């Protein structure tokens, strides 16, 4: 299936600029109105886990700051984001909030930096108004540099976003039922192309992957993956080796953003707001813990999962705070749980491998 993917991210991005004249924006995790950017001919390139050593970022950030924030800063300091035309920082957590200011106010990378605040739970009528105002405000601010938002074009991109969500839902649903004939590695490699592919390239890729991966239902043991990222990638490979299928996920970078129901609204701003408020529960939007637990239980039931693996990025406060409640709730249901502390790019230690293998044995 390798021909599905672009040869390399950097080549793809350069081509986007050269052929389509698209501006490239580095976007930090996690929630933002992608369609606004695309409609303004800006391609969002998400910055989650660039494969870098964080020695430069360590001079700016304390040892108790998570590696996602450090890797993002490292990318900027090392100039690896040289091809980018600007940065967008969504208000995901305290660390990303302050990182945005370090970059904008102190490091001054010579590229425009934008910030996107989204309302936090508990949601009220004011939250909805505010969210729409925020999207419009972002469009106006970007418009000052990249030209005004073209409404019909925006509408088209919202429709494309709906199409992406629809194929994602189908992929996730097929996988949950055991009907997806693809490894965990292949699945996440494909899904994560959404972090930088333009929708015109992403939609056919997802559709092709879906068509090629439909197969006879698999009887592998299923687990749910929870956390921020399906990292390190070695976890997925190990699960493949152990014949354990990730039946569904509660990952910030994946399922929590992609699995949104279709919008009924004709107005593109309203449609984006509808999507935001209907996203699966997430720590970064302050969703109540009971909703997260219910969502996890639904995923477990829907994918016939035998256990949950929490991949916790060290120092990630939003995720760590919810964990005790989730564990307690899942244990009450008699579900096996494995909590592993991981770094996005640091592979698996022997000890971690043994723990995952033992967990696999237990749930089989």
């Amino acid at each position: 299936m390798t021909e599905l993917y672009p040869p390399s991210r950097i080549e793809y991005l350069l081509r986007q600029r050269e052929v389509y004249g698209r501006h490239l924006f580095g976007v930090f995790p996690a929630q933002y109105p992608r369609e606004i950017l695309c409609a303004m001919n800006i391609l969002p390139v998400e910055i989650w886990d660039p494969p870098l050593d964080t020695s430069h970022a360590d001079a700016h950030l304390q040892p108790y700051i998570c590696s996602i924030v450090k890797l993002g800063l490292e990318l900027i300091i090392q100039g690896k984001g040289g091809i980018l035309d600007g940065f967008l920082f969504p208000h995901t957590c305290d660390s990303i909030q302050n990182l945005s200011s370090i970059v904008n106010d102190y490091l001054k990378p010579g590229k425009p930096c934008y910030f996107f605040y989204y309302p936090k739970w508990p949601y009220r009528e004011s939250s909805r108004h505010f969210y729409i105002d925020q999207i419009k405000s972002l469009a106006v601010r970007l418009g000052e540099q990249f030209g005004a938002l073209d409404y019909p074009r925006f509408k088209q991109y919202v429709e494309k976003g709906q199409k992406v969500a629809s194929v994602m839902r189908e992929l996730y649903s097929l996988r949950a039922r055991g009907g997806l004939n693809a490894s965990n590695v292949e699945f996440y490699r494909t899904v994560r192309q959404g972090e930088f592919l333009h929708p015109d390239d992403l939609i056919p890729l997802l559709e092709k992957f879906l068509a090629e991966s439909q197969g006879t239902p698999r009887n592998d043991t299923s687990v749910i993956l929870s956390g921020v990222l399906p990292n390190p990638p070695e976890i997925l490979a190990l699960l493949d080796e152990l014949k354990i299928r990730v039946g569904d996920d509660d990952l910030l970078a994946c399922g929590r953003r992609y699995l949104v129901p279709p919008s009924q609204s004709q107005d593109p701003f309203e449609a984006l707001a509808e999507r935001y408020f209907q996203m699966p529960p997430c720590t970064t939007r302050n969703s109540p813990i009971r909703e997260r637990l219910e969502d996890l239980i639904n995923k477990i039931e829907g994918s016939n999962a035998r256990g949950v693996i929490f991949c916790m990025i060290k120092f990630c406060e939003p995720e760590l705070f919810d964990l005790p409640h989730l564990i307690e709730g899942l244990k009450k249901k008699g579900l096996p749980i494995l909590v592993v502390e991981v770094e996005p790019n640091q592979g698996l230690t022997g000890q971690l491998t043994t723990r995952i293998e033992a967990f696999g044995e237990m749930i089989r």
Partner: protein
Amino acid sequence: MVKRLMSLSKKIKYRLMKDVGAPGIMRFLGMGKKRPPRKKSPSLGPPLTCNRSLKELMAMHYLLSRYAQGAMPVAWVTSGAPVEILRPFDFYTFYPENHGALCGAQKMGPELCAEAEEHGYHQDLCSYARIDLGHYFSGKTPVGRLPKPDLLFASNNICQTVVYWYKALAEYWKIPLILFDTPYNFGEINEVDISYMVHQFKEMIPLLEQISKRRFRYKRFQEIVGLAKEASLTWGEVLSTMKVRPSPMTIFDAFMHLAPIVSLRGLLAALEHYRALLAELKDRVAHGVGAIKNERWRLMWDNIAIWYKMRDFSNLFAERSMNFVTATYTNAWTETIGYLDEAKPFESMAKAYSLVILNNNLNHRLQLMERLIQEFQVDGLVIHSARSCKPYSVGQYDLKKLITERLGIPTVVIEADITDSRAYSEEQAMVRLEAFFETLEG
């Protein structure tokens, strides 16, 4: 009927305690056998007489909180939340962060944090939160007993952490959580943000009426906003007395006297306390009485206090003739309060509460620190990199570099935690401080 009678009996009990019982207990404790005074550095000046009234005020607040449950609605509130909106509904307000600081100062932090850790809360999480959750699981507290809340009231203007923490409490207690969501000021505050916050206040009122079973009284609300403003401005005047050489108090005194503006804001008791403290400080200034005997160097503190090291640091710096005369932390409860306006309480509260230091960009913080350094004639800066507080700490390494470059004053970063002493290394801190002292004394 039985419920009503019980509630009435609790109200009478509370009233009796407030008017007769608690003051009597305070007097009795005051007359009783006094604890031998703790060892104080000879380099320190005379202690403030208002320290005693502060202790009484806060002891009374904690004591009465036990009787509030059932007599009136009880709310647990984050330190930066706009408490003025709760006061017209007669909520008894309790501040877990203040309780956390108290536990830290009494060196109970590790014990309570460990209780939370046993229940799955990671050691990397905020230690105020772990202390509070540790109290939830164990009931341990240095103040006897804490009132069970009917409401959790949080604002993310100081951090997102308080919301994650209060969400957990809401789940355990099955009680409502109201959030005052304050958009972060990456740039300047704008009308959309203000309108969102005003809208939230208006949405809160019916909820608060429902929880408290009391009607909202707009005039009373305006009076409370006025009282809060006056107390905060008076607190600002208290801090301003430290501009004088020698400074009549140290930042360690200010850390202690911060409690009423955090916990009793909007109540007359806070204002009265600061009026008395201000009078005492002015008297000290008039008589040239310094908080330390030989003030040669004047320092600034950045971030929350290291509560379990207060006494040690107070002595250590005084012995070096160094006095902390300002802090970004103590300043936070007066910096934006000028925005408060009884005539426009909602709009003005939106500004006052969303423009606070931790909800503002780092450029704002740099400018604020530069201004304080100039106004208070600061010779050196001590930065506490607090493991518990990411919004306060992320960016400090760059702040240090910029302040050193722009103002040429010595600066030092101490890696520690606000209440969990397990995250503090005395050796490492002293190595850094010794180097700082050498540069300063140079």
